[in-house]
């Protein structure tokens, strides 16, 4: 099955949420992926702060991201005035209609910069569709399935995707599920508890 990445036709920068950073690190080849990805990759302060909390439990995502920033593969961003206004609207209100700071800041930054917001969260995607219909939203699989990334990783792509599922428990949207299973194989898919049950059962 062919997977169409939302990034194949877009040169706009991507703003990555915490979950996407964790998934990319879990692939074991985040550097190669980001070198191949033609889109500039941006991360907001709130995501960096959230990842730093993970240091207390021994997670290395903050350090891995720091290396990627040092290599200029990821750019740090702070929200400007317009971004802060969107951020405020996304964090204040009822629980069902708000997001945590990292998710909200990622979306606000993407709106502000005309970028693609990369989030792996159903609720965040739903809120974007309802409130910011013009915003382009993608997920980690869109990065992994981007054709330059596929070409750069070659046969290593399947291992990268399996690692993201196995180590990072990556979430996969319905439209990409079959592509993921075809890529990693049914046996390995059966081991990935973050995949929907129907995909694991083969």
């Amino acid at each position, binding site marked *: 099955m062919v997977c169409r990445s939302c990034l194949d036709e877009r040169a706009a920068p991507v703003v990555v949420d915490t979950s996407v950073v964790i998934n990319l690190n879990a692939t074991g080849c985040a550097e190669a992926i980001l070198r191949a990805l033609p889109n500039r990759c941006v991360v907001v302060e709130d995501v960096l702060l959230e990842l730093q909390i993970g240091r207390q439990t021994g997670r290395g995502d903050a350090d891995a991201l720091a290396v990627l920033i040092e290599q200029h593969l990821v750019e740090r961003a702070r929200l400007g005035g317009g971004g802060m206004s969107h951020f405020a609207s996304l964090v204040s209100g009822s*629980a*069902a209609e708000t997001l945590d700071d*990292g998710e909200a800041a990622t979306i606000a930054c993407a709106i502000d910069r005309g970028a693609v917001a990369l989030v792996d969260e159903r*609720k965040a995607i739903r809120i974007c569709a309802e409130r910011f219909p013009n915003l382009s939203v993608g997920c980690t699989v869109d990065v992994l399935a981007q054709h330059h990334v596929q070409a750069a990783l070659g046969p290593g792509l399947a291992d990268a995707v399996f690692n993201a599922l196995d*180590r990072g428990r990556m*979430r996969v949207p319905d439209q990409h599920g079959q592509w993921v299973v075809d890529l990693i194989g049914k046996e390995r898919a059966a081991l990935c508890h973050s995949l929907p049950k129907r995909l694991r059962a083969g």
Partner: protein
Amino acid sequence: MTLQSIDPVDVGARLRAAREAAGLTQTDAATDLRVARTTLVAMEQGRRRVRIDEIQHLARLYGTSVNAVLRCEAAHVDLVPRFRKLSTANDEAAERAARLLTDLVRAEVELENLLGVTRTHNHPPARPLLPGDVRLQAENDAIALRQWLGLGLAPVHDVISLLELELGVRVYVRPLDSRVSGLFAYEDGVGACILLNAKHPRERQAQTGVHELGHLTSRRQTPDVCRFDQHDDSREERYANAFGRAFLTPARTVTVRFQDLTAGASRFTRRHVILLAHAFGVSREAIVRRLEELGLVKRGTWDWFEAHGGITNEQARQVLGEPVAVEPDSREAQRPVSLRLGLLAAEAQRRELLSEGQLARLLRLDRVELRRILDAADIDGNDTNGLPKLPR
């Protein structure tokens, strides 16, 4: 919703609660925000509208998020001030643990409110301390509670599930400073809450859990910090210690088991200790001390073993077989959230009431650990259409 549409008095009150939960003074916060203390006071009283960047700055300083401060349903429970009144005041490890307990209780209450779930408290009847021998009262109260729960005199192998599912106590197991074994607090509307140290062996967690159950039984309005290195000879502590021993190792059952195991033996051996400790799910030291207390072995028996090489895990493996049998539910003790809390979190995410980021912050978990818990709680995945419906 915009920030302007929220009542500034409400925003101020939430900021004040967050600051107090973080243990910071108004001067600390004002200095960090680079405003006068009077300005911060005006913000907290709602007399000066707070800008979003100021809330963001303060939320970071307080170790929380803007969303956690401004979310309408955020539950405002604060158990920390109760602990500050204890003799363990100025004890940083205890204060950190009290803050963690507050955060976890707050998370569970918010999840219950969001999902419309009412927690059933089935706490044991209160039995205030009476004049006289507290140890004797504790023995009697522990046996009475066992009868009330229908446990009879049988060993209890899963104290955490018993506390949570039978007694409706909120139980959390998280890594704490090694000197802190556990905390207990009770608040009307929230019920009894216990935090246990995940770094401690399961047997010790069980002993701490029933020690705190003793506090729930005798003096629930007073919180407790159970510390490894603190000798407290108050009547309350002597009661809680004796209650815990009597609950886990009832005198009659221990006596019968001891006589069965040692029948025909002329010496009390390491093998006896290992088998008895295993039978009651307590540490080897705890069972020997209990035997000493009941007069079944001489005082100083445990000290003798300690002075003669102790009793090793390897010896336990030899006696109990390799591998040592693991009870199916014993991994519960290592879970950072209870099964119930995990199910509430999974349901809140399934209904899109809370995002992954909100849940991770609420439950004080990193994203991957949260995903593991959500996956475990959601073994049917999203394919729930064919599953039987519950009558409502």
